[in-house]
């Protein structure tokens, strides 16, 4: 659980993105794309899920990427190499189904880009034609562009404010690509609003769409139901049934609301966090 390496990927005010490489040989040996870990930064901390971005079996390390948004991620950001996490458990969740689909589009928004990286890498190795669409609010917040280029056949980038590459949203490019050619899979990770839009776009083109959800979790082994989400009228637990689901069947409005359940408390504790 010791931090081997810390790297700041983006240092934009109010949106710092950090990569941690953490020693955990047992998790590294088992981790597959799409799986996640749950960690606690400190003993009194929360249990938060983070996708495993990379796993190095030889070095016995895993990499995690996060944006400082709440108290836990701020505390994580304060850790340095040689520091240890209080708790780290995984790998959890179902891995991505990696196989030869044919032509695949991966859509990553914000830190979601980090989460499509291991999937892109695995799908490329499996012989798929991989197109990646990366979206960020602004140039400084764009991460892993080079890494994605190394595992994709084509990479498209959009920024909300037009400060880099094309101004607009990932779904603009997605729609254009889908109108030109037929694709076999769209895989999206990012803010709920983005995944919801991706699902809305792909529905019109009748293409299989997989999303990886970021529901709130506590134990993340199916024991609490905090992460429950409605998928095609059925209640699923994101932790043990997911985190990936058919994007066309997810009840996005419900997920949006459930993810805001502690908004007041988060504001309160983050105020305290700023005093750190």
């Amino acid at each position, binding site marked *: 659980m010791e931090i081997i390496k810390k790297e700041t990927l983006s240092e934009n005010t109010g949106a710092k993105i950090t990569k941690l490489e953490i020693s955990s040989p*047992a*998790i590294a040996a*088992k981790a597959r794309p799409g799986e996640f870990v749950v960690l*606690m930064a400190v003993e*009194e*901390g*929360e*249990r938060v899920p983070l996708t495993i971005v990379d796993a190095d079996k030889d070095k016995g390390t895993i990499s995690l990427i996060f944006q400082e948004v709440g*108290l*836990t991620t701020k505390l994580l950001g304060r850790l340095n190499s040689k520091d240890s996490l*209080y*708790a*780290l*458990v*995984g*790998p*959890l969740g179902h891995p991505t189904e990696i196989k030869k689909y044919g032509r695949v589009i991966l859509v990553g928004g914000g830190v979601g880009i980090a989460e499509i990286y291991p999937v892109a890498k695995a799908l490329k190795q499996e012989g798929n034609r991989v197109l990646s669409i990366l979206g960020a609010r602004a140039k400084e917040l764009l991460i892993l562009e080079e890494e994605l280029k190394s595992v994709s056949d084509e990479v498209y980038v959009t920024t909300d404010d037009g400060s880099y590459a094309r101004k607009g949203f990932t779904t603009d490019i997605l729609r254009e690509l889908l109108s030109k050619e037929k694709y076999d899979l769209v895989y999206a990770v990012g803010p709920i609003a983005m995944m919801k839009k991706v699902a809305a776009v792909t529905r019109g083109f009748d293409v299989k769409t997989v999303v990886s959800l970021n529901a709130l979790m*506590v*134990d993340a*082994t*199916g*024991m*609490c*139901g*905090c992460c*429950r*989400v*409605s998928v095609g009228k059925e*209640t699923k637990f994101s932790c*043990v049934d997911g985190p990936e689901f058919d994007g066309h069947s997810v009840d996005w*409005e*419900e997920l949006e*609301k*459930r993810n*805001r*359940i*502690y908004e007041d*408390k*988060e504001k*309160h*504790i983050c105020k*305290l966090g700023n005093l750190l």
Partner: protein
Amino acid sequence: MKKEAVRAQELEPLKRIADFAEVVSGYTEEEALQEASRCLQCKNPACIPGCPVGIDIKKFIFQMTQKDYKGAYFTIREKNGFPSICGRVCPAEYQCRKTCVLSKKGLPFASEQAINIHYLERFAGDYGLKNKLKVPVRVDKKLSKFKVAVVGSGPAGLCCAGELSRAGIKVVIFESLHKLGGVLRYGIPPFRLPRDILDFEIDYLKNSGVESIVNFVVGRIKTLDELFSEGYNCIFLGLGAGVPGFLGIKGENLCNVYSANEFLTRVNLMSAYKFPQAHTPVNIGKRAVVIGGGNTAIDAARAALRLQKINGLAPDTAILYRRTEVEMPARRLEIEHARQEGINFQFLIQPIEFIGDEAGFVKKIRCLKCRLGEPDSSGRRRSVPIEGSDFEIDSDLVIIAVGLKANQVLTSVTPQLKTDKYSDVLVNPETMETSIRRVFAGGDIVGGEGTVIEAMGMAKKASEAIIGSL
């Protein structure tokens, strides 16, 4: 002249709901002696068969009357490694106290006259704990070369680990959460089982040589085969019934509709009642409603009420149960405590829908009134909803405590492990061995939801079979 049963001291209801301190203070020495002296020392004690682990109750109570508390402690420890825990959480009124000769017969649970065996056990347990009494480890050279993996650190896992290590076997406990204790830690609130008592009993195990690895989900990070290949001779599965049941009605995924497991895990394991010093939040309703009639429902309600009080809200927490008080599976003492604290019990009510506001937070519960029908397979009269009796209750925080199911993280990736239709693990009832040779199981993963002491009873049986197999 018949002597009256001695009641244990309790904190004042109005004071105790302002924090999570232990409610029952336990006996003083005088009280313990007085209660012990009521025991008739029956020739054929009926209490002992009422104990799932068969503690020699007659003997330990006699030792207590002789002020031989050390002897009493060791007598209990012969059969039960966790007297301070069981003395607090055992539903004695359904077990040893119910079969006590002084209890009135024909009731579903013990009457007040029955000896308060659990309080005496607790006194002896706490005596051992305070005086750091140690049960000697049997050094058996033949057994000391063996190694057993115990999966899960709840009542079954802890008990099995204790029994095996006492026999000189090397034991490693694997726990998926970041702290040991299982349901004793995430489920049972500190006001029923203080954390220092739980920590002490667990530390006792560790000090006696039991190793533990937390943050380790067997089935995900290591399979059973991998554990065997690492040299474990046997594996014990105490996985628990950790999956919360829901009602399957409309609006159940609204915000502030919690499973009791989530609510209690946030409060107990993650200490959300200390928010923001502890970082895990939990929402606190102005009108909290708990649905269910078991101990979990009562624990959740009493925790919710305390959170209201701690946060300066007027305590307003209700329990809705579809049958009546007699059919409630909860411990009688807990029902009484909950009532003293101001929990509002509403019987013969069944929710049919949760109604929320625009932001997706629950605001109302739509219910049906019920009446009692014929007894079901559990022997309790079933509840029959009355058509057209719909009504609404205001509630901004709902906790669903309608039972738990088997945890399937391990069984779903271990197809050789045979399970029944409830996903409970099937075992040979004589040995607790599963369909995989050298893999044993006990506790709620075998029998479905039961009590702490029933889980320990199964774990003991398994530990004996494990020792026999080595």
